[in-house]
């Protein structure tokens, strides 16, 4: 895709905003539509776009495989760890009431952390799946279509 100038310029402009929007969806999920699942997919979509336009090698450099190996389990561990933390603080598993001084504050904190864990795992899994497919694909030439 060397010569697709418009695609390259436009996607370069768009990718930071897509990432920012993903973060907005992630952390504004308490107030409007959104949350970890959607944010994770949008965040991954930014990297998919980058890989489609600038090549899979460049995208792998931007998001190395070693990060994926850490981030995929990390999200699940954050989620489960919140449950363990509430157990240790004297509540039941995933009972966020005990996480902060007031039950409502605890619920807010718990929801934020748990949604973050979901977002991390979904992002990493979606990027890993895309890289797994793209790593096997032969470069599609323009005249193939």
């Amino acid at each position, binding site marked *: 895709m060397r010569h697709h100038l418009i695609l390259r310029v436009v996607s370069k402009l768009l990718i930071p905003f897509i990432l920012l929007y993903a973060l907005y969806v992630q952390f504004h999920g308490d*107030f*409007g*539509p959104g*949350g970890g*699942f959607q944010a*994770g*997919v949008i965040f991954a979509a930014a990297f998919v776009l980058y890989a489609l336009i600038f090549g899979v090698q460049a995208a792998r450099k931007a998001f190395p495989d070693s990060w994926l190996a850490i981030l995929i389990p990390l999200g699940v561990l954050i989620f489960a760890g919140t449950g363990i933390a509430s157990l240790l603080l004297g509540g039941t598993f995933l009972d966020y009431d005990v996480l902060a001084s007031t039950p409502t504050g605890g619920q807010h904190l718990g929801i934020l952390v748990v949604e973050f864990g979901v977002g991390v795992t*979904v992002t990493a*899994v*979606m990027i890993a*799946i895309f890289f*797994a*497919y793209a790593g*096997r694909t032969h470069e599609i030439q323009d005249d193939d279509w």
Partner: protein
Amino acid sequence: MLELFLDKYNYWIVVVLMMIGLYIVIARGNLVKKIVGLNVFQTSVFMFYISLGKAEGGTAPILTGKPELFSNPLPHVLILTAIVVGIATTALGLALVVRIRESYDTIEEDELEGMDNAVVTTERARLGTGDAA
């Protein structure tokens, strides 16, 4: 009759879409096409669940401070996670298709079955002659 239609039309259309998905899964032999069919089926099931949660005159389940009538948020939660799990399992299915294509060089169901049967037949023949000797 019109009342029955207005009460149920959403469910009926969803059932028709669901059956189109099922038809693709059963009738087409191409494995990628089968997975697309499963996706159509799956999305129709999602629509059925969401239809069950719709409240006439209700609004999206986001609190604004005023007393309002909300659509049922529980199916929304179930389907939201189901969509993301659905794409993860679809990716797994497509990965299996890619590996099948690499091993058999085809993704048509009847050809795969033919190859497997041929292997079984030759294996049986080999074992049969082995016993005779």
